[in-house]
């Protein structure tokens, strides 16, 4: 019986703290996305700038590992039984990729554009994942072009 109570308490803590942290993270993401509003990141390779105007080209990247809270993990476990969209993981994936993109943009600084951007999932925590650590690692990279003033 005590086990059950501890378990329920963990879920409650996981839900409340997890929701709070997620809200905060989204707040920070929105704020920084506004700050980098004028720095585009695109998947195409050329943005038809004349070559002589490009002052520098530099590889930029950003990565992040975000974990899920235990409430959402249990929800995902339940959803796995019945099938369908695992809605509780959607925000995790969304946050991880936007955060990685933002960190890439932060590294680019005052560049004009980031071209040939790729977003991938790395696999450092795959071993941990088997042990039940629900986390996602996103990495974004591209080439930052800075134009002559």
């Amino acid at each position, binding site marked *: *019986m005590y*086990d*059950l109570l501890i*378990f329920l308490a963990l879920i409650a803590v996981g*839900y409340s703290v997890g929701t709070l942290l997620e809200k905060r993270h989204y707040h920070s993401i929105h704020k920084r*996305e506004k700050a980098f*509003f*004028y720095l*585009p990141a695109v998947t195409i390779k050329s*943005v*038809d700038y004349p070559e002589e105007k490009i002052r520098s080209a530099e590889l930029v990247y950003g990565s992040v590992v975000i974990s899920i809270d*235990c*409430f*959402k993990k*249990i*929800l995902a*476990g*339940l*959803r796995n*039984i*019945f099938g369908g*969209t695992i*809605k*509780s993981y*959607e*925000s995790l*994936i*969304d946050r991880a990729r936007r955060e990685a993109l933002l960190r890439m943009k932060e590294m680019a600084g005052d560049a004009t*554009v980031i071209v040939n951007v790729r977003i991938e999932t790395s696999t450092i925590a795959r071993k941990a994942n088997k042990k*039940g650590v629900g986390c996602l690692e996103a990495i974004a990279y591209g080439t930052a072009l800075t134009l002559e003033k």
Partner: protein
Amino acid sequence: MRYTPRHPKSNVNVTPTSHIREFFVLAGGLLSLIVVIYLVLGLTVDLIVPHISIDLENKMGVHFFQSMGGKDVDSQRGYYVQSLIDDLRERCAKLPYRFKIHVRKASTVNAMALPGGHVIVFTGLLDKMSSENELAFVLAHEMGHYAHRDHLRAGGRAVVLMTFSALLFGADSSVSKILSHTLNITELSFSRKQETMADEFALETINCAYGHVGGATDFFEKIPKEQDTGKIGHYFASHPETRSRISHLNNIIRSRGFNLAKRKPLPKAIWNFIP
């Protein structure tokens, strides 16, 4: 090609949803699924159990018993309890089992009926006994479980369910844990009927063996005085509330006109011997 910065109106990658609501819907669905499986399982187990031959059960019992591990202690009292159960079986309850008593060292006030006629008696129970009749009642109660083959029913269902939940979620996942809790509760409430039946069987048996049923309710009358929670708490949970159990036994004693006579004491030499 010029760049026009724009913010999307909504986040397309996250479905706006209430996770709490989804949780309750899914958990409710899972729970009802489990209840259905449990009932179906119960029916199948009830169908299969009468067809399991004693021979097959004995073979399964050996494996089951070996997997339990542990060591028999207190051979003095063990022999005595063994002779008592053999005597009960010989004279009053002709069950097709060869009972083997295993005394195990634990403060638990309990006895267990395992498949294949292996009866585990804990020293905690033996220490509490004050008369032979009282001990005989507890043994006859376990024999009652064998007579109705409850030990197979409970074991069969529990084993199948545990396998099922381990298969679904992995043996040590949190979902499995919460499941095993809920399963335990239902399992216990199911076995109460079986406990009452075993009580009735035990009453008949000791009436046959001693010609009276004195000492039958002694054991239960003792329990409320003990304030040992924890392990004894488990015994409480799996057996019907002692008070209703005593009154049920008394009702049967009255209606069947059983006698209450003097209890036979336990052999002092064996009982007070400290190994």
